[in-house]
């Protein structure tokens, strides 16, 4: 069983976020593997293990030369990584991103594509389904459990009211929620092994997508960025055993009690 995991390298979410002069998210600092993607990597490793063999290929795109996040996925145990890295990809929208990923994924055989439900920086949340459509695959989003039996995929999918058991035929695409599995930490051995694993860097030209993706392919534009009306902080007390009373008094003041 061969699984492709789509991952994104993002600015550290713990650091303050900002826009650059072109209103793109500032990615000038160190990039890390989006934590949301570690679940897909772990899920892929477990499914390949259960199937008795196969490859886990990590696929990504970005505008910079950073590959530390991909090395991290390789250190967890992925077989190889491919990144489309090109300055012209800056300002790509979700559909352009899906087109780039589709062009990479079409180059090799696969049974299953995994992705996070959304990235932790842009959180558009449509790229995986756009990718499935471009590749002509069924998709099941918001998976909280995934299993494969022969060529049948079985997924517990979150719903507004609970969850559905959904099945589909492989090859297919699944988006996994955080918490679906417990991602492993890269071991020292894994980190050393990752250094000799294949990490292929492609350009937009290599994929024949010049002028179709990146800012050139985006058909939406930011017209303005404004500070939102901010909420004022109210009163803050250190609990001296009277915290509960203060809450009750507040609830009375707004007539909830």
């Amino acid at each position, binding site marked *: 069983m061969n699984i492709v995991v789509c991952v994104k390298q993002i600015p550290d979410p713990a650091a303050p976020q900002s826009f650059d002069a072109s209103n793109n998210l500032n990615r000038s600092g160190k990039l890390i593997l989006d934590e949301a993607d570690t679940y897909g990597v772990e899920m892929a490793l477990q499914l390949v293990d259960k199937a008795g063999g196969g490859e886990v290929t990590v696929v990504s795109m970005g505008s910079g030369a950073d590959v530390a996040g991909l090395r991290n996925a390789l250190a967890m145990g992925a077989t190889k990584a491919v990144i489309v890295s090109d300055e012209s990809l800056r300002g790509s929208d979700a559909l352009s991103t899906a087109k780039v990923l589709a062009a990479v994924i079409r180059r090799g055989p696969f049974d299953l594509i995994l992705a996070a439900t959304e990235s932790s920086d842009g959180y558009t949340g449509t790229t995986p*389904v756009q990718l499935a459509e471009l590749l002509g*695959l069924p998709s099941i989003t918001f998976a909280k459990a995934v299993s494969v039996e022969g060529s049948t995929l079985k997924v517990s999918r979150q719903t507004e009211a609970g969850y559905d058991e959904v099945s589909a035929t492989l090859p297919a695409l699944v988006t996994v929620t955080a918490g679906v599995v417990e991602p492993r930490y890269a071991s020292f051995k894994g980190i050393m092994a990752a250094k000799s694993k294949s990490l292929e860097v492609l350009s937009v030209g290599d994929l024949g997508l010049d002028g179709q993706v990146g800012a050139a392919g985006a*058909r*939406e534009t930011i017209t*303005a960025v404004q500070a939102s009306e901010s*909420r004022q902080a109210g*009163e803050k007390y250190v609990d001296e055993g009277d915290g509960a009373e203060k809450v009750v008094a*507040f609830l009375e003041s707004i007539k909830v009690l």
Partner: protein
Amino acid sequence: MTLSTLWVLVEPTEDSLTSTSLEMLSHARTLSDNVAAITWGNGASFAAQAGDYGAKTLYDVGDLSGALPGVPVASAIQALIEREGAPDAILIPTSYDGRDVAGRLSARLDRPVLTNVAGLRDESGLVTEHPVFGGSLTVYAKFTSDGPGIVVVRAKSFAAEPAGGVPATVVAATPGELGATASATIVTSHVEERTGPKLEDATVVVSGGRGLGDASTYALIEEIAKLLHGAAGASRAIVDAGWVPYSHQVGQTGKTVKPLVYVACGISGATQHMVGMKGSKNIVAINKDPDAPIFQIADLGIVGDVHKVLPALIDALKAR
């Protein structure tokens, strides 16, 4: 009005269209005189409701035979565009199925999609409003290509107000050939039972986060919610940790709530969470970290241990 036609994807539940669907219809009719709705499943039985909120036509994809809606509904919308011409934009609710439809449709039509939209106005074309960085900034955007633009709208972005319109005319909309994409099928549905008001409708929401320490402490949140006749919510952290079901999640990926009062217990106030609750009328925060970001938006902040404050609060509420 410069927008000639808007289409709105309206999601059916057992007894009504979803509240986000009605909110979008209400707003769409202020932007265009020609609003049509698109639905599936039992949605056509709500033609009167769709009309009341502003839809003149209700395109019905009908029974999906258990298929996940994303593929067949997007295909049917594509066929409708070929038959009826493209609207200026298609509004789609931020929901599990809504996002599937939006992604499929965007790739099928080769048209862009704007998500996390919390406002929409007409300035010689649609301008969308997106809260970013936990709602501290608002980004305004517009499409630069020919329509239809695909707009994915967050819950509670607009008020749902009936306009007394006549029932919408139901017109069939049929998916085209779906091929391999159509194989995703629902085998069984599980409903996680909950008591009390729905999270998104409750006047009082009491939520817990990682500061609770462990899953069993969530019982305190449920008890306080019950005593206040409210609903119990949760941060993404404890939902991901498996302490409570996903249906309790408030935030970017979960539900958007705007109750009269939101009580955040052991929640630090991550960007992801704040987006889903900062529209609450009043916010109370209880957290042991005095620097937790949640205190910056709280009307009442208690710096304290939830393991002490919450039991005392339960006693005080019971004593009333």
